[in-house]
């Protein structure tokens, strides 16, 4: 247990939790618009939101490094706003992670929202529900599994994020040295025992956490189905 870097673990968890919250706040409205609105140009928005999956993570990280650096207007603006450049800081990693994991939050939600019976959406609209109410009372409750999937995938994808952090982070303990960087360092330094231990703990924790989340979701699903049965 000595080789376990708890500081890095805490940092990874904090990064993943914050990224997931921000992503859901972005992806729920975005997913709803993509499914409900019919404008053709939204296809371009959906394509853009999927784009981070195409770029190799280190390349994405490099682009962000340049974009957020002091040589672009964006970078200078951010530096003026925050008082420091975003690269090599925790806030920089949050920005990078949100972009990197965006498709993993948007895609499940779009799929979930699109699978809802359009008759229900039309009925809600006819009864006078505005877009916010529609999302809150129809889309989200009916696409609970998708919401859960979006949250879980965003979280795990951020925990396992490596290339972007490698380029944008600068390996600073407590600020940008995440668990995946520690793990990579252990492997690169031929410290396979420590690497095995770190990887095993990370995977073990993830499996336990996922099992807890999915079993809670399953219980609720069974319960809902039973209640639905009584009504029928």
């Amino acid at each position, binding site marked *: 247990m000595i080789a376990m870097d708890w500081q890095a673990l805490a940092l990874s968890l904090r990064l993943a939790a914050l990224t997931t919250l921000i992503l859901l706040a972005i992806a729920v409205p975005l997913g709803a618009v993509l*499914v409900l609105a*019919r404008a053709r140009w939204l296809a371009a928005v959906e394509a853009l939101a999927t784009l981070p999956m195409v770029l190799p993570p280190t390349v994405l990280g*490099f682009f962000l*490094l*340049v974009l*957020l*650096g*002091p*040589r672009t207007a964006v*970078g200078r603006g951010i530096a003026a706003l925050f008082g420091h*450049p975003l*690269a*090599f800081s925790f806030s920089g990693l949050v920005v990078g992670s949100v972009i990197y994991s965006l498709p993993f939050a948007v895609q499940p939600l779009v799929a979930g929202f*699109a699978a809802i019976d*359009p008759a229900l*959406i039309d009925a809600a609209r006819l009864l006078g529900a505005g877009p916010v109410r529609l999302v809150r009372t129809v889309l989200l409750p009916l696409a609970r599994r998708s919401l859960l999937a979006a949250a879980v995938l965003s979280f795990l994808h951020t925990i396992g994020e490596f290339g972007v952090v*490698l*380029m944008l982070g*600068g*390996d*600073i303990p407590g600020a940008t040295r995440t668990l995946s960087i520690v793990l990579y*360092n252990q*492997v*690169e*330094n*031929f410290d396979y025992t420590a690497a095995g231990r770190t990887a095993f703990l990370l995977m073990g924790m993830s499996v336990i956490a996922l099992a807890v989340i999915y079993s809670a979701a399953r219980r609720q699903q069974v319960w809902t189905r039973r209640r639905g049965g009584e009504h029928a």
Partner: protein
Amino acid sequence: MNPMIPAYMSKRFFSSTFALLLVMPLAAQAPLQAQTPLRVAAAADLEPVLPPVLAEFEHATGIHAEATYQASAMLTTQIENGAPFDVFLSADLGYPKHLIDDKLADTAGSADSITPITYAKGTLVLWARKDSHLPTPSLDLLHDANLKRLAIANPDRAPYGRAAVAALTALNLYDTLKPRLVTAENISQAAQFADSGNADAGLISLTSATTQRLQSDGTYFMIPRNLYPPIEQGLVIVTNTRQRAAAHQFLDFLLSPAIQAEFAKSGLAPAK
């Protein structure tokens, strides 16, 4: 079709997409290679240096050589696990020595069979952008309180990173600067940190500093050689190679005076 269901959910869309996925790999198949190239595993700092050398080698011998650029540690792990390389050009002596000890690499029958063959020596420089608010690079820059972020390569495995820490320690600056160091995965990335302006300066390789891009963006100062142990770059032949003759030819070519002189121009000091 139900207007609420987007076009991409239709059956026809799915079948045509899958058909495309099946056909794509066939269309993209690479033309058959006439001859297996000599595969060279090369340390990342050689990326700006090696391509013209490989072209000259092909011109001189007719042997086509292809290089893969990676951190030396990564290449060592790959060779240990059977990567099909013929020659390994490391950025230090430690990694190729590791492979010799594991009987995975050899020195092409040279007199000293347990020490990798030194083919060049690296030079550490302090580099900063021309538009930097800090004074031009010199040892004084390292003492400057406005130097907030100094990029170095990872000292645990990158030879230039080790040299950077050794130099800072020799200057009695390591403890002061430690909180301001940003660690890059390899020496090229350290150069990117500094060139993108995210770090105020970087301790990088002369090979990076003499690339066209970094020469137009910034200036460098050579760290005095007595401040860090020599960055000797060693090469070995991967013992399992099927192209031993070609590999030996390549080795002789690298150590020839003409190529050694070319190395010197691109920032690598000659081996001897």
